[in-house]
């Protein structure tokens, strides 16, 4: 009898792995349990300015560790130890290492409720509506929320309450399967840092959402006020459930209107998906317009918040796409089809400019110059470009041949497989 798992595995191989290069180990996952391997990698890692991010993550995690009182010290210690262990063991660290920024963001978000009110800056109530009215000529969010009916409620709920929470997982799966190997960690980090920056801004610049204006007017706000589901209360009524009313009332971040992380998440997901499937870009942008409308319709954000989230995401994406993002090869059907990977684009460095002509040539934009034979020329290759990436990069491949002529040849890293 044929087991369905065997059948599925075969089916999967015919669909995704039919054109895999026999010698390529690029897309494989690390199956090692040896902690020494991770230690060796850290030792061989060439440190640079980008590594300051780990200091930032660690500082925020420590802050959260001391602020959070709800699970006791023992539970917190156990969680921290388990996480450290997961980072040390190669087979788990390939997933948990890119997850670090996301984890930091989630912990910081959870710890918000424990931060005492007198540590926090005063809440601004009128700044956002003023900005919206002055910069966009009208109270857009108010206008869109003025007329309600059940159909519009459901239409707004689908992206705001459903897709938003599922999309990160679906996007990760799609990116893992169809993008160049190494894209998913970059996505996870960008997503994590975007949200981390967003929550930090929300903490430093607390502002009230449109539902506050509807409930209390322009009266000054205090941290005692509880959250509100806004228009999602109507959705709860329609569905006959208590999904959003209870969760939004107990939200740790009541005055986090600016920037909108619903908008930020949607934009960064869309930018990554558009990187993988450029032809579907108009469709993806339609989704952004949809979720923007629904956040305003449900009185959760002003228009300026949506712009703030989008600008944040776009900035993060462009930093990442120039420096770290593996270039898509459009003739490849899945991650297993890749036999080499190029990352980002060679940004011109300030000192190393020879002449104006040289500079101008160098300024090519990543997306258009996907595969260039010129890039493989040995004189251009710089090993340092590769070191930027992460600890998860395979360092033992490079170190023995560091000073060899070999390091000039590969524009790709066969054992790049170490990354998800």
């Amino acid at each position, binding site marked *: 009898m044929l087991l369905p798992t065997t059948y599925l595995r075969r089916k999967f191989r015919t669909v995704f792995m039919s054109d895999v290069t026999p010698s390529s180990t690029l897309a494989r996952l690390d199956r090692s349990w040896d902690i020494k391997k991770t230690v060796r990698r850290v030792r061989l890692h060439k440190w640079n300015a980008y590594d300051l991010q780990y200091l930032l993550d660690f500082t925020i995690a420590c802050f959260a560790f001391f602020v959070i009182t709800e699970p006791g010290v023992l539970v917190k210690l156990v969680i921290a130890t388990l996480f450290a262990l997961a980072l040390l063991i190669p087979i788990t660290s390939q997933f948990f290492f890119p997850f670090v920024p996301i984890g930091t963001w989630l912990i910081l978000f959870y710890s918000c409720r424990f931060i005492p009110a007198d540590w926090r800056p005063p809440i601004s109530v*009128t700044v956002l509506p003023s*900005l919206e*009215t002055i910069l966009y000529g009208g109270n*857009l969010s108010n206008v869109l929320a003025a007329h309600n009916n059940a159909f519009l409620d459901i239409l707004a709920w689908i992206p705001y309450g459903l897709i938003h929470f599922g999309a990160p997982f679906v996007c990760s799966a799609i990116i893992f399967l169809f993008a160049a190997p190494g894209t998913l960690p970059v996505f996870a980090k960008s997503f994590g840092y975007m949200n981390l920056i967003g929550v930090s801004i929300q903490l430093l610049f607390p502002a009230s959402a449109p539902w506050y204006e509807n409930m209390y007017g322009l009266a000054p706000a205090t941290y005692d006020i509880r959250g509100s589901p806004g228009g999602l209360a109507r959705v709860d009524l329609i569905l006959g459930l208590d999904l959003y009313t209870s969760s939004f009332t107990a939200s740790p971040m009541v005055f986090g209107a600016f920037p909108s992380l619903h908008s930020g998440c949607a934009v960064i997901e869309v930018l990554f998906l558009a990187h993988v499937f450029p032809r579907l870009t108009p469709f993806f942008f339609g989704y952004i317009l949809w979720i923007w409308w629904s956040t305003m319709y449900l009185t959760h954000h002003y228009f300026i918040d949506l*712009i703030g989230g989008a600008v944040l995401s776009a900035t993060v994406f462009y930093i990442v796409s*120039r420096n770290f993002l593996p270039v898509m090869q459009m003739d490849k059907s899945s991650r297993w089809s890749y036999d080499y990977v190029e990352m980002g684009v060679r940004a011109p460095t300030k000192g190393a400019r020879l002449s104006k002509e040289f500079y101008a040539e160098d300024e090519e934009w990543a997306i258009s110059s996907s595969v260039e034979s010129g890039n493989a020329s040995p004189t251009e290759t710089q090993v340092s470009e590769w070191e930027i990436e992460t600890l998860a990069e395979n360092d033992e491949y490079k170190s023995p041949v560091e000073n060899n002529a070999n390091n000039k040849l590969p524009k790709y890293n066969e054992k790049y497989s170490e990354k998800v």
Partner: protein
Amino acid sequence: MPSLVPKQYFLGFIPLAAGAELITVFGVVNKASGIYGTLSIFTGHPITVAQLVLNIISLLLLPVFLYALHNVRRQNALPVVAFSYIYFLDMLANLAFTIYFSVAWFRVFNVTLATEASKDNTPSIDTASERGLSITIIVLVLLCKVYFSLALFGYARLLVRKAGMRADNGEGKFTRRLQYFMLTIAPSFWRRGSRRAGKGRMVNTLEEGNGTY
């Protein structure tokens, strides 16, 4: 006096090509407000003439900005020059609208606050500081827009020089006229070596010479 128009780096460290693309993306995102503003006509919300005009301008400029984004990415010189002019004009229009709307808003705002204060007898302390914050942010946003416009001009100039474009070497009837029109507005800005008019070539050879020796 050093020129305010960036020569090669946006904000001093980002290559202008990337900066220009970011500026255009921000522009596209902002112009999307036109879609939502126009929706208010369909919902029957009362709307003033100024709001209507701003929304229609945004809506019309949205496809222009998208087309510009396409060209900024591909480094096409002539469309980028045209876009830098459009962005500049749009920035000026935005400036006018912002001043108009802020005057209108703060007038209404003061009245609302006065009525609320008389109703509750609880004058809020924070409103003055919040108003100051709003005004500061708006001024900063406007300054950003001015700098963005200058950066776009800088990027357009970079492309013009790279493509060797002059006012008189356009191809095709329409392109030629457009190129002539756009590049004759400030010829010394677009020309290579603008600081010393006429000696541009020489300055460049000197620079290249330094590199080799």
